[in-house]
């Protein structure tokens, strides 16, 4: 693979080079949060050591530098997702806040009693609860696209669910619980044919393959910095400019206004209208560093590595006696969710942990899809660009150890 050598990549991530519980750390929980390359750590330190000041307010040199760094980060994000305009990039706390923002601004303005919000059975709670709350506030109705036993969306059901009352389609790009890659471009096409806007939850997608929001055509795209090797507390809401401009503000405060008297407030332009208060400056700077890191590796290379490792891991896990994969979609990315014989995932997680292997066990904040598969929880190993076949082999050995304990 040209330009991508996983052993080289691993050297960029200091946290990976440690022993835990007397064994080399095997980190297979990047879907929860990803580790950070030195470049991101350095960018944070550099910002604090040289450039820190509040943005958009001071006339002094540091404020100028900080503003430049912050707005530069916005441009870096624009390039990364191929948005038309940096003004379409709103900095938020993460995917969760991005979706809440759309629900409480776009949603409160355009969605009323009897209207429908369409989501899917495999959403993360972050793309369910904000809509549930909106429905409770407005009397709108939440509708759900079902999944089949592979963990793919039942596409045949979609057209009938996109009705004249549907006001938004909110759908994940990649399921964090199953790994399913959802055909969001096709869904967007179908929704747009009926004039329905589309929000895509990209939290698990942007780390694994190139994302081009213009190509997808969606109206909103949400993701988190911490899952893509950047800092926590920073995330992005992409919104098509026409959409953002037609939306009321989210929170009120400094930076989101043009003028304030006690009688009247004039709101700022987009994206500032949605960024009340001092933003997470170092977070944006760190996110930009993470993006530059990914761009240097090449997202196509990252995607190829992920595909190859996922195929290897799928085969290796399926050879473990008694292992049942939960989520066997034809197109998957980054996630292996499974049950091991009749051992509860929590016990699997504990035993692997003692082997120095970090996985996630539980419902993965996606209880509705767990209910579909009739399991209270699964074990989930998730892969990132720094994982290797050796990591997968260690996992397989760990699973054999689990079977040994439970015979």
């Amino acid at each position, binding site marked *: 693979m040209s330009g991508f050598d996983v052993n080289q990549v691993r050297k960029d991530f200091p946290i990976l080079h440690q022993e835990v519980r007397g064994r080399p750390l095997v980190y297979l929980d990047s879907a929860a949060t990803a580790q950070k390359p030195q470049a991101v750590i350095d960018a944070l330190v550099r910002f604090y050591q040289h450039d820190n000041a509040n943005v958009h307010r001071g006339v002094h040199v540091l404020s100028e530098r900080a503003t430049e760094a912050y707005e530069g980060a916005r441009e870096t994000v624009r390039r990364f997702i191929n948005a038309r305009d940096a003004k379409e990039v709103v900095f938020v706390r993460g995917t969760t806040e991005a979706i809440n923002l759309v629900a409480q601004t776009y949603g409160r303005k355009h969605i009323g009693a009897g209207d429908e919000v369409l989501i899917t059975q495999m959403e993360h709670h972050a793309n369910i609860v904000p809509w549930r709350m909106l429905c409770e506030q407005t009397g709108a109705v939440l509708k759900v696209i079902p999944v089949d036993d592979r963990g793919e969306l039942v596409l045949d059901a979609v057209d009938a669910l996109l009705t004249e009352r549907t006001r938004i389609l909110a759908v994940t790009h990649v399921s964090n619980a199953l790994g399913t890659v959802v055909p969001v471009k096709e869904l967007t096409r179908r929704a747009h044919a009926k004039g329905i806007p589309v929000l895509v939850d990209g939290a698990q997608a942007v780390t694994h393959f190139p994302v081009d929001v213009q190509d997808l055509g969606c109206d909103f795209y949400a993701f988190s910095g911490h899952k893509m090797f950047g800092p926590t507390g920073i995330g992005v809401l992409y919104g098509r400019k026409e959409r953002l401009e037609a939306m009321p503000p989210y929170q009120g405060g400094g930076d989101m206004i043009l003028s304030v008297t006690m009688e009247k407030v004039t709101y700022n332009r987009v994206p500032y209208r949605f960024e009340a208060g001092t933003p997470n400056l170092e977070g944006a700077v760190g996110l930009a560093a993470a993006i530059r890191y990914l761009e240097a590796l090449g997202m196509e290379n990252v995607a190829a590595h992920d595909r190859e490792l996922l195929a290897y891991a799928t085969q290796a896990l399926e050879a473990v006696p008694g292992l049942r994969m939960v989520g066997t979609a034809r197109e998957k990315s980054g996630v292996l969710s499974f049950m091991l014989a009749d051992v*509860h995932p*929590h*016990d699997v997680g504990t035993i692997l942990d003692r082997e120095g292997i970090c996985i996630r066990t539980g419902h993965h904040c996606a209880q509705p899809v767990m209910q579909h598969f009739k399991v*209270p929880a699964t074990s989930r190993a998730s892969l990132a660009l720094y994982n290797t076949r050796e990591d997968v082999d260690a996992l397989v050995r760990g699973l054999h150890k689990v079977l040994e*304990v439970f015979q």
Partner: protein
Amino acid sequence: MSASDDLKDLYQEVVLEHSKRPRNYRVVEGATAEAAGHNPLCGDQLVVTLKVEGGVIKDVAFQGQGCAISKASASLMTGAVKDRTRAEAEDLFERVHKLVTEGPESVDVDALGKLAVLSGVSEFPARVKCASLAWHTLRAALEGRGEAVSTE
């Protein structure tokens, strides 16, 4: 102690055996109290039913789904609190809780009988909630709080 000794302490023979074939896995007939317990972190859910007569727990049983530790703890609990008074059951819970949080040195392990096999839990702070779920649920039932108790 090595990682694998810790594991052996956690998943002792008796614990595994109780988790695979839990005792009193049923609903008490003519139950006078019941409560549901829930551990939202791992999705464990169980229901404890009991029959109390003259202040004594005449029968106690549980049903539900959970990890090996929570099932074994529930199963062992049903055996341990049967024919005990409320106060005795409460006292036992306190000692079990000490055992799973602070370890075997913190209590008179011999006096705990079979429950002593839960001592390995203290090396696994993330699993204390699993071991305590049934007990919290029992307490809720004894206090007449039937609503779901949550370990979160």
